[in-house]
């Protein structure tokens, strides 16, 4: 059992959720409520990582954030090391590749809040910010929660993009999915089996907890 890889995967999934939670709320709300000219295009771009092969996506990440790219260059100037082949680079890729899983369900959640209820909130004197906290988020919460579970589970299982972006530096970029692949390559089927089963268990527990939680929220809303 590669505990370092498991810990790294959990850390990556956790940070991805932390970063995507506010982003999904802001972007999901914007896409749900606002009408603007390029909305269709923005929605398409957000969904793109869902349809692209992870290798293609990873390749562009490598090109966009590599040592010779402006972003990679700036990162090097600031921190003295490369962005790719590091945990930070992995996190960046993970955030981008998870955008559709984060934004889509959150957007659906906000769309489920009736427009009259939002109008009533503003007519009750609630500023947009207070309306978000007191009315919209409590009602859109199941969507946001679903988004975060998907992001967490999907990050644990991500393989292609991480392989392209990170290689497999232990404790830095070697996630549990990569570790399983390595074990199979090295004919350690038992090690791969244990780690796979662990991953299945973690995913199952996460999703079960979420469903139970959202069912409770659903009951609370009556």
């Amino acid at each position, binding site marked *: 059992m590669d505990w370092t890889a498991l810990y790294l995967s959990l850390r990556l999934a956790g940070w991805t959720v932390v970063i995507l939670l506010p982003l999904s709320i802001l972007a999901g709300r914007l896409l749900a409520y606002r009408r603007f000219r390029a909305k269709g295009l923005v929605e398409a771009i957000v969904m793109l990582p869902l349809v692209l092969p992870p290798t293609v996506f990873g390749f562009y990440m490598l090109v966009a954030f590599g040592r010779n790219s402006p972003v990679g260059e700036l990162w090097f100037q600031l921190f003295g090391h490369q962005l790719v082949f590091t945990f930070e680079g992995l996190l960046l890729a993970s955030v981008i590749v998870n955008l559709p899983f984060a934004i889509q369900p959150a957007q659906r959640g906000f769309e489920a809040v009736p427009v009259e209820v939002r109008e009533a909130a503003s007519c009750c004197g609630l500023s*947009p910010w207070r309306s978000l906290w*007191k009315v919209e988020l409590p*009602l859109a919460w199941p969507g946001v929660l679903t988004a975060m579970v998907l992001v967490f589970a999907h990050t644990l299982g991500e393989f292609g993009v991480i392989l392209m972006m990170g290689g497999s530096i232990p404790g830095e970029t070697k996630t549990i999915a990569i570790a399983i692949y390595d074990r199979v390559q090295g004919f350690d089927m038992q090690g791969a089996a244990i780690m796979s089963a662990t991953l299945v268990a973690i995913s199952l527990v996460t999703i079960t907890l979420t469903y139970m939680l959202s069912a409770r929220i659903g009951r609370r809303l009556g």
Partner: protein
Amino acid sequence: MALEVMAQAIAPIPLDVAFRVEPGELLALVGHSGSGKTTLLRTIAGLWRPATARVRVGGTVWLDTRTGVNLAPHRRRVGVVFQNYALFPHMTAAQNVMAALDAPDLAEATRLLDLVNLHGLADRKPAQLSGGQQQRVAVARALARKPAALLLDEPFSAVDRATRDKLYAEIIALRAHLAMPVVLVTHDMNEAQLLADRMVVIEKGQVVRAGTTAQVMADAGALRAMGIREVAALLPAMVVEHLPDGLTRLEAAGGPLFLPSVEAAPGTRVRVRIMAHEVILSRARPEGLSAQNIIAGRIARIVAGHGPAVMVHIDVGGQEILARITRRAADQMALQPGETVHAILKAMSVARDHIAATAPDLTPTAA
């Protein structure tokens, strides 16, 4: 602080309307669906901005497209009761009301819920309340905003007939507490007549007729625009006693009225709705008729409409009742303004659902 509204637009619906509502006055915007009445209400609330518009309450400008002033809804002191109430489903009745208060104050929220006869239901979620109760929460929430203008958007359309009559009575009673201008949007002329001081009839975004409720209800053109054929007058009366034979004796300006059992305690003020086409006129006080209700009055005016009928307005102790009779009958009787006539009201024509209590019994019953 009066509410002044002016709105002009071409799209999405043509609109060219201006009106003013005095403090404490209830103005009904009456029109068919698509006439623009709800758009006007949304303009006042700040949920919609027409191409050219001005909304002013007292000295405060909420919207003026000419000077570019446009306050967001949450910056306007406006109370809105939405058609389907739009309560916050995750909050209790008390929390709904508190959400509209400037500072969370459970005592004040409870007081407002008591005011709308929702005593003891503060901890219920909207889904656990009946339609009538939800409407009352919505009213309490709108009042919690301490509004400079109160807006009611078809607030009675989502409840059944019996509940509606009860809610009418409650709104009428509640008006003693309302010092701000109130705007009611409705497609129901009879509802407007029951509740409003003044009416503005809107058709295709234009004002067809504006005036006091009595003026508009006596205007054949306005009524035709609303597709109303049955005109009625409202006569204030007081319940005096319930008789053993099942009738209730009421005292009205022109004399006693006997109606089939009215569900209200003696002393209760009510308005009796008298349909104009069910009134028979007689010059002399008739004797030997089966009809029990005969009111004497003075002809105020006779208004001829299209067709064979005329509308006779009869002054009864300062109140007005209407009689629709044929032009031929009016000519034969040689009716003239200023003359005394006796209006014969068939007892059955003043049925129970034509009575709206002006003061509700204050029992906190659930509707």
